[in-house]
């Protein structure tokens, strides 16, 4: 008689036990300490600084709404919109997610965003950007203000360049008018200490860059295009094949490949942070960018720095400005809680947290003070970012099909910036490819 279970049965039991244990661990991993009775609302964004501001803001929020807990999810910008699309499509997106002008159109058109009632104290430019079909599709969270020039005090002093001169710089295809190029040449230094303005400059071994000319849509391209009087997009269509835009791109590409004042495109084409990191390590004298890098620079730069106004182009000084909204996911399981959180995000009290540590400029106008107060307390003059917006602006592109179109552009622009293709024919080909892809 069998008194103890057969060993094959033992094996089976062992197998089942192990499976059960593993399954148990899996389930445990899946539950993330859901507090009893609370509604969890998730918020997705890409900016680390603002995420920190949000966390503080949500602590305050939970005090007033104890039944709702808000959690932030950070996804890196490089993959943000790819994963957002697949998540929204799969119904697994967060309850609230950030969206920018370039990408929101297709979500709005497919009913994937909650309609929002505009509040009077929100930044009108941002409202305008995110209104489509007469409806506002997100709660404005921040506005990027305009683009300006960050500069490294020490490097400017060493080159004998005055920051005031930097703020007055003009760029122009005509060398007799152009002051930007010669200025940047003095700020580009090779390993032997020679600047790009001197004879014997070794363009292959540069230890200090002058400027961050690169294929950077918001930081560089759009501003040059606008300052040349050109256009990038016209509604939902790409329209950058025009003479002024050619001029703008030609100038930028030359800065990289002929004048050698900026890093080669092989470094910057696939790495949006390359130039900023060079600037932060003290290897770049002038860094053209927006307020979205201000907090990082203030926190990490180990040298004295300042901000000057954008260079003026043949058609003036034109900057792009951009806003970000927090959009609501209409497929959420708790729409009421989501609306409550959205209300908080759009209120002065809630939005103010973005400005408190200078993470971003709040889009709720009464909350913007906190931002200015923070930076002036640190003796950082942020006026150039705002002053530039008093002039004409160029819109950030967007529209349905933008993502596909922009992906089609990339190989063309990469080659153009690498100096391997001529600007004019490349823009023609790229525009056609982009519009074709956008239609699909």
């Amino acid at each position, binding site marked *: 008689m069998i008194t103890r279970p*057969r*060993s*094959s*049965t033992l*094996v*089976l039991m062992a*197998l089942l036990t*192990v*499976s059960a244990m*593993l*399954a148990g*661990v*899996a389930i445990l*991993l*899946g539950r*993330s300490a859901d507090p009893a009775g609370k509604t969890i609302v998730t918020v*997705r964004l890409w900016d680390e600084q603002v995420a920190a501001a949000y966390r503080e803001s949500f602590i305050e929020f939970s005090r007033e709404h104890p039944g709702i807990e808000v959690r932030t*999810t950070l*996804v*890196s*910008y*490089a*993959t943000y919109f790819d*994963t957002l699309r*697949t*998540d929204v*499509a*799969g*119904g*697994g997106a*967060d309850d609230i997610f950030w969206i920018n002008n370039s990408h929101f159109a297709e979500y709005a058109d497919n009913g994937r965003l909650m309609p929002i009632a505009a509040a009077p104290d929100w930044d009108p430019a941002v409202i305008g950007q995110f209104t489509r079909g007469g409806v506002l599709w997100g709660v404005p969270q921040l506005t990027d203000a305009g683009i300006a020039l960050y500069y490294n005090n020490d490097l400017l002093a060493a080159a004998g360049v005055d920051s005031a001169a930097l703020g007055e710089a003009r760029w122009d295809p005509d060398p007799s008018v152009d002051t930007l190029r010669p200025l940047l040449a003095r700020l580009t230094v090779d390993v032997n200490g020679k600047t790009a303005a001197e004879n014997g400059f070794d363009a292959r071994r540069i230890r200090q860059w002058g400027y961050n000319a690169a294929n950077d849509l918001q930081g560089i391209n759009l501003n040059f295009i606008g300052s040349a009087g050109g256009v990038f997009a016209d509604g939902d269509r790409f329209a950058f094949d025009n003479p002024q835009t050619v001029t703008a791109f030609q100038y930028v590409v030359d800065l990289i490949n002929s004048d050698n004042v900026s890093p080669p495109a092989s470094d910057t084409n*696939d*790495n*949006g*942070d*390359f130039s900023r*990191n060079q600037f932060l*390590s003290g290897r770049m004298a002038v860094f053209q960018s927006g307020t979205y890098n201000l907090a990082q620079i203030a926190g990490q730069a180990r040298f004295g720095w300042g901000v000057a106004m954008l260079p003026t182009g043949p058609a003036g000084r034109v900057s792009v400005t951009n806003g970000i909204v927090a959009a609501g996911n209409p497929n959420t399981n708790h729409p009421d809680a989501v609306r409550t959180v959205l209300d908080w995000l759009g209120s002065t009290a809630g939005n103010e947290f973005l400005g408190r540590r200078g993470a971003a400029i709040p889009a709720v106008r009464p909350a913007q003070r906190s931002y200015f107060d923070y930076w002036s307390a640190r003796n950082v003059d942020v006026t150039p970012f705002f002053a530039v917006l008093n002039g004409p602006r160029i819109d950030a592109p967007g529209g349905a099909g933008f993502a596909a179109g922009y992906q089609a552009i990339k190989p063309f622009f990469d080659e153009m910036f690498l100096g391997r293709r001529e600007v004019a024919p490349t823009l023609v080909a790229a525009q056609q490819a982009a519009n074709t892809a956008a239609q699909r």
Partner: protein
Amino acid sequence: MTSPRRSNALIYAGLMVAAVLTVAPFALSLLTSVTSAQQFATGTPLSLPSPPTLSNYTALGDAGFGRALMVTALMTAIITLGQLTFSVLAAYAFARLEFRGRDGLFWLYVATLMVPGTVTVVPLYLMMAEMGLRNTFWALVLPFLFGSPYAIFLLREYFRSIPDDLLNAAKLDGANTLDVIVHVVLPASKPILATLTLITVVSQWNSFMWPLVITSGERWRVLTVATAGLQSQYNAQWTLVMAATTVAIVPLVLLFAIFQRHIVRSIVVTGLK
């Protein structure tokens, strides 16, 4: 005609060169991963870290790598267990049982070996989405849990070559199917089982495209996806990125180092078939 000693020396030289080419990238990346970011940025990239630091690794912890490790390990364990179990059962049925449609079904299984993983990603994604399984642990695991035609194919070969006498003897002793499998078939198949375990563990641990597509956010992110994400988020912060690749690579290298002899022998045995 070169003397044996000279030709041996040449062979050793060749082997050494190949060994250096193989190991150098790993060694260099390890070096970088223990260099502080400061030193890397200000000094020359290949200088020795002074002092070596673990700061990059602790930064990884903040970036969610601890969880990624757990998710990956769990996923690998569950899939390996399930795949091997169900493959053994199926291979036994194909190898040792007689029933209608057996061969036809087997050729069906073999036919699916031709289906490349790349081709199934998009439709599987759609199917998972329709079932609401996107971004769940089960979505990571289900497509692979129920046995692998490749494993079934190899196991069947092996099982067929087990001498009939062994099996008959067991049956005469009153063994049922489960007994036969556990007591006769499995012990006789240790090499192939070891190989398959290794192959499954390696391919699941290193799986990238499917987890990339089916998960998002931190919750169910596996190690490969976390590494790719880190590389794009902290682009050109090489000290951090190299720490990530080291974390992704070391567990398997350790596993390999421990079971090395067994593993190499097993791969060889598979190839001979």
